[in-house]
């Protein structure tokens, strides 16, 4: 019997060896240690001191949230690593910075919008089968929560949403905030179809100012178009929709999925569509679209230059400018790029850092004067993929 116990103990130790090899090796290999360098080719690093790049880095233990700032070492906010706690880096950041506000709110990035003064959230609605109300009605309320980041005060309001009889869901897909207006795209699902609206909410009057019914077809909704929304002035909303055109399966001819860009403008006061006669290049060229102060910008990188086309909505004047830049920022024909307003400028950056031979280029573009205020790139010492998902500013 004594020998049996010794054999069992030895067997148990043998059983543990493969498990220790599997789980302990990544801990001691230090491959998850992050190391990123910021290098400036123009301007000072201090100009970007309020910048936070939130992203994900692929490590041996899966994806991990990461925050890069120019003047501080990168770090992760995760207390412990678990597959079940991995979430959108922006939501993770919001939960760590504003835990009281975030408690009880769904972790959907689309439902939040943050400025340097406020954090806003609009809740979604989903009809729950078997609820006491029996069948879904034609109205529901969505809770709007506004956090004042300075005072930590939270204000809430109910936004009434009306649809057809049998309202099964109403969910927010994007939000935009100006000084006093909150605009959010709302998808409302009834018995047979889905509708998209832009709700314009006046934060000062605390009421819905306008409900815009955009000219988006059921087909566009069905095939899942993607869109950005811009406020180009206090009364005009511009949407940049990329429409997917699928091959005709009935003819059994294989075709590539085609994309088409549609830019539309809406009056925020009346909800009506505004005529917008854009140059062809805005519709058919890849690049970043941005709009502010009555001007729509199309920005792309071409052989050492930032090529910027502008369209003045008021005068319909078109200009073209080439800004020489030393940083190559446009990979993969304009894909994986992001542009974020930062201190009266636009921070343009690539979103993907593939490996240590790659550079994640960025340009701080002075939009008003069309000059590059700062340029540089981020490099890493590791063979890791890194994705910048979101940017926010202190």
């Amino acid at each position: 019997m004594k020998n049996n116990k010794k054999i069992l103990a030895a067997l148990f130790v043998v059983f543990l060896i493969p498990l220790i090899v599997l789980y302990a090796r990544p801990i001691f290999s230090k491959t998850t240690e992050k190391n990123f360098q910021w290098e400036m080719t123009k301007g000072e690093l201090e100009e970007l001191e309020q910048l936070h790049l939130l992203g994900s880095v692929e490590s041996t233990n899966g994806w991990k949230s990461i925050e890069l700032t120019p003047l501080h070492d990168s770090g992760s906010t995760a207390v412990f690593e678990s597959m079940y706690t991995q979430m959108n880096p922006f939501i993770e950041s919001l939960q760590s910075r504003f835990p009281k506000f975030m408690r009880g709110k769904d972790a959907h990035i689309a439902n939040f919008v943050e400025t340097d003064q406020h954090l806003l959230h609009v809740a979604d609605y989903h009809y729950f089968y078997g609820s006491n109300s029996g069948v879904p009605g034609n109205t529901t309320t969505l809770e709007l929560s506004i956090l004042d980041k300075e005072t930590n005060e939270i204000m809430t309001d109910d936004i009434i949403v009306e649809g057809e009889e049998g309202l099964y869901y109403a969910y927010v897909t994007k939000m935009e905030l100006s000084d006093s207006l909150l605009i959010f795209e709302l998808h409302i699902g009834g018995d047979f179809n889905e509708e998209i609206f832009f709700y314009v909410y006046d934060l000062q009057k605390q009421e819905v100012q306008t409900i815009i019914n955009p000219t988006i077809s059921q087909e566009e909704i069905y095939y899942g178009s993607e869109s950005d929304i811009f406020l180009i002035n206090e009364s005009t909303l511009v949407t940049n929709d990329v429409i997917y055109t699928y091959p005709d399966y009935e003819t059994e001819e294989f075709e590539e999925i085609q994309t088409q860009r549609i830019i539309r403008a809406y009056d925020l006061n009346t909800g009506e569509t505004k005529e917008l006669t854009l140059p062809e290049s805005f519709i058919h060229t890849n690049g970043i679209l941005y709009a502010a102060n009555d001007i729509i910008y199309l920005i792309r990188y071409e052989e050492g230059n930032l090529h910027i086309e502008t369209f003045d909505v008021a005068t319909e004047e078109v200009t073209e400018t080439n800004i020489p830049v030393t940083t190559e920022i446009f990979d993969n024909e304009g894909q994986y790029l992001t542009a974020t307003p930062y201190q009266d400028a636009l921070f343009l950056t690539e979103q993907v850092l593939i490996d240590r031979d790659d550079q994640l280029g960025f340009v701080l573009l002075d939009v008003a004067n069309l000059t590059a205020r700062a340029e540089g790139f981020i490099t890493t010492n590791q063979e890791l993929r890194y994705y910048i998902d979101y940017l926010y500013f202190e």
Partner: protein
Amino acid sequence: MKKTFDLLAFELHRVRILYPVLVLIIALMQITAIVDTNQNYMSMLEHFQITGQGNLLDFKEYWGPTQFTAVTGHLAYVYSLFVGVFTLLIYSVVIWYQDWWGKNNLSYRLLALPGSRMSIFFSKLLAILFMMVGLIAFQVVMLYVGNELFELISHPELLESTSIRQNIEYNAFLYVILPNLIFDFFLHYTIGIAALTLVFMMIVIALCYKLKGMFVNAAIIVGGIAVAVSSIRFDIFRHLFVQEILYVVIALSLLVFFLSLWISRKLLQEKITV
């Protein structure tokens, strides 16, 4: 403690044939998956070349390289994991009833042994856990060995090596058994051990109260399902962050574990009969 380990040795001695056979069956199924995946791939290549669709490089470009992830997604591989898990689950019940049912009087002797009767409980629990750890360790070894074997028999120009982590991630069931993160490993097995202890408690209840015990167990199952459904229906975790929900799950697992131990101890000391 001595009694527990003596009984553990006794329990494991009982499976000295069955357990190696189980391990052998799993190994054979996984080797079959490796060979079959390679053969399927080579047949596809042959068909590709015979029908004039192109050469080896065209095939690789069209179908992609051959990877071990295809093996972990193979049906024989998936079934081999099910065989291991379900055999242990079934044996978790058999390990009790083989002493209580039939003509042998082993349960008399077990209950008559000097010392705490919880030794019976712990020895059976540890026996299952011992076998479980053995199967997990064997699975890790098979992942490394299988990967080497696959690379050995695969066409070198079509082969693309994958890491153990990638191979595990490709099979959702394997990922539950061997999660990539050590925290998740402890989380999964904390829940698993708590569930096993609960099953053992329910078996002890059934042994103590016979038909009435069955009703009690049915009530426990229905109650558990009702709590789970209600928690989803009323979204009771809505105000918790996901990390906090994990803490709650761990706390509930520990509660189930210790409560099951306490109830089992009471029943084994005061109620159980042969």
